[in-house]
């Protein structure tokens, strides 16, 4: 039965399609193939999610080598959810990509763009699906190496230095991760995550295991751009081709957040670890710090892409805070924010991409008057902005609801205050977009600006609609996330949250 092999097909199809694209050497053919492949990948990820919701976690032994000796792919609620997000963004970007890439990437390099795009997708999906700690490193490097190339394809020369700095920081992060995995292997003799989880509790107090955890966490924090290890991110996002920014902003850092959840909760046992080592307090502190500091920096950015990049850093703080709170509600808030922020940020960056296609570089002042000239694009941008702020009926509100509930449960009043304050800061930096777009007249000689082509608008509108649909009908996503969070923490989300509020 083919359905038994879905986990491996999820990875292998984009992996094989990448060299095929290289052989095609034709821009349109490569785009077409990539579109078909991403669509198939998305269908597979949805099928996997259905299977998991129906029958519980799937374990797939690679090459029929029984785990823990062979590499095991594990699809549980959390990884299936991440797979759907990554594959979903992967396919939604494609209609947008065709024209945007043609504009921003030299013609002879377009097919190479899609080769790297497929490899990056393959790596990100692989990270989410694998149950083997070292295999995760391999996928991490597949996705990272291809994303360095993707970023360097930007036409501004600062894209090159952005990619270079990302390469340095990313490689240090990945190498730290490998050191951590090596130490764990030394102490336990296994690389399988489930196996590690069984053997680690007995030796959790040893110095080597503590050092391993430190290496793993610092390495992953570099990859997910946790404040203060974020220096590579703003330039990489600001100068990469818009399609790349959309894709990476919505998936790459999110998948790294997933890795952190896996390591802390699945491998090291989450709450049990927090009792021995106060990692959770460090995560809460760093999460809150990035929520505030990055939002403050965002206020002073003129380049809209850079502003949104700093806003991403601030939003990553929410996820880390959720992980650090250590209870089911907080973790559910952190996980759902992976989805919510992917939707909102992808919509925002697509709106920026539409503006770039019509106006060129985008500083805040370039947006002047576009509220009337490009009403659809700016409308989608408004929905994205409202999600960032966390207005009720948008997805951002769902996140905040659960995070605040989690902070209450943990009795952490400072976290509650920080979530609210960070929302206010989001109002300030996004208000600059609103003011420029709706309350200022377009500059001289720019009267003829039209809406972007429909192929670029359609995915943007789908994502903007998703921000509202999953903001109102939050139970669809929350049902999955709550099961995943409860399984990770080993306690139930208090019933009062599930029944109250979220659904207006």
């Amino acid at each position, binding site marked *: 039965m083919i359905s038994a092999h879905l986990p491996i097909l999820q990875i292998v199809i984009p992996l094989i399609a990448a060299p095929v694209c290289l052989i095609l050497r034709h821009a349109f053919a490569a785009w077409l193939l990539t579109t078909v492949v991403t669509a198939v990948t998305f269908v597979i990820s949805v099928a996997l999610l259905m299977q998991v919701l129906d029958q519980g976690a799937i374990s797939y032994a690679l090459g029929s080598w029984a785990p823990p000796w062979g590499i095991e792919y594990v699809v549980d609620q959390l990884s299936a959810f991440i797979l759907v997000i990554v594959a979903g963004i992967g396919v939604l970007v494609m209609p947008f990509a065709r024209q945007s890439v043609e504009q921003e990437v030299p013609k002879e390099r377009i097919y190479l763009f899609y080769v790297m795009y497929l490899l990056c997708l393959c790596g990100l999906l692989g990270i989410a699906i694998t149950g083997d700690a070292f295999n995760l490193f*391999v996928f991490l490097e597949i996705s990272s190496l291809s994303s360095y190339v993707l970023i360097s394809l930007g036409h501004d020369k600062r894209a090159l230095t952005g990619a270079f700095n990302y390469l340095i920081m990313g490689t240090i992060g*990945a190498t730290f991760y*490998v050191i951590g995995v090596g130490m764990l292997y030394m102490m336990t003799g296994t690389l399988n995550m489930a196996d590690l989880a069984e053997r680690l509790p007995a030796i959790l107090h040893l110095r080597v295991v503590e050092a391993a955890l430190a290496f793993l966490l610092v390495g992953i924090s570099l990859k997910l751009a946790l404040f203060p290890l974020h220096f590579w991110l703003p330039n990489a996002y600001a100068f990469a081709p818009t399609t790349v920014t959309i894709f990476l902003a919505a998936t790459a850092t999110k998948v790294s957040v997933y890795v952190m959840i896996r390591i802390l909760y699945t491998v090291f046992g989450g709450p049990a670890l927090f009792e021995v080592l106060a990692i959770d307090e460090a995560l809460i502190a760093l999460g809150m710090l990035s929520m505030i500091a990055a939002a403050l920096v965002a206020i002073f950015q003129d380049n809209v892409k850079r502003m949104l990049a700093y806003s991403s850093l601030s939003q990553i703080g929410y996820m880390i805070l959720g992980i650090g709170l250590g209870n089911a509600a907080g973790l559910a808030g952190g996980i759902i924010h992976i989805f919510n922020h992917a939707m909102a940020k992808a919509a925002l960056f697509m709106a920026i991409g539409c503006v770039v296609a019509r106006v060129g570089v985008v500083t805040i002042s370039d947006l002047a008057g576009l509220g009337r000239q490009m009403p659809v694009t700016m409308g989608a941008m408004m929905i994205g902005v409202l999600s960032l702020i966390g207005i009720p009926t948008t997805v951002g509100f769902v996140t905040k609801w659960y995070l605040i509930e989690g902070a209450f449960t943990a009795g952490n009043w400072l976290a509650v205050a920080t979530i609210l304050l960070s929302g206010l800061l989001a109002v300030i930096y996004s208000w600059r977009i609103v003011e420029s777009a709706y309350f200022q007249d377009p500059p001289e000689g720019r009267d003829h600006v039209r809406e972007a082509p429909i192929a670029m608008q359609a995915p943007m509108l789908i994502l903007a609609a998703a921000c509202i649909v999953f903001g109102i009908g939050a139970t669809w996503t929350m049902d999955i996330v709550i099961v995943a969070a409860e399984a990770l923490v080993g306690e139930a989300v208090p019933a009062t949250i599930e029944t109250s509020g979220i659904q207006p």
Partner: protein
Amino acid sequence: MTGRSRTTDPMEFPGVFNYWISIILMMIGFYVVIAQGNLVKKIFGLNVFQVSVFLFYISMSKVDGGVAPILDDRYQVYSNPLPHVLILTAIVVGVATMSLGLALVVRIRDAYGTIEEEEIERQEAEMP
């Protein structure tokens, strides 16, 4: 327990000297990455940093008196081959990272006319 071939305290120098060597190499590489302004030197520092981890993996799987894991009646003690295989993969990743990094340096030189970090930063500060 793999790797612990001796019972000496690992903190006692030279104790388990293979770990000391890989840590020293690691810090040399890391220092070069941070302190050097020349992008090519940075990449090489990064490579030293990665290689130190390869040594860490390979040396931890060594068992005193152990031979290569070949099934034969004459040998009873084998070194653990798994970390070697893992590092084979990591070496490939390291080579890919290094070549990509150097390729980026070539393109940076084409675009900026220099590979010194300070000069690049100066040029970028002047850009809008």
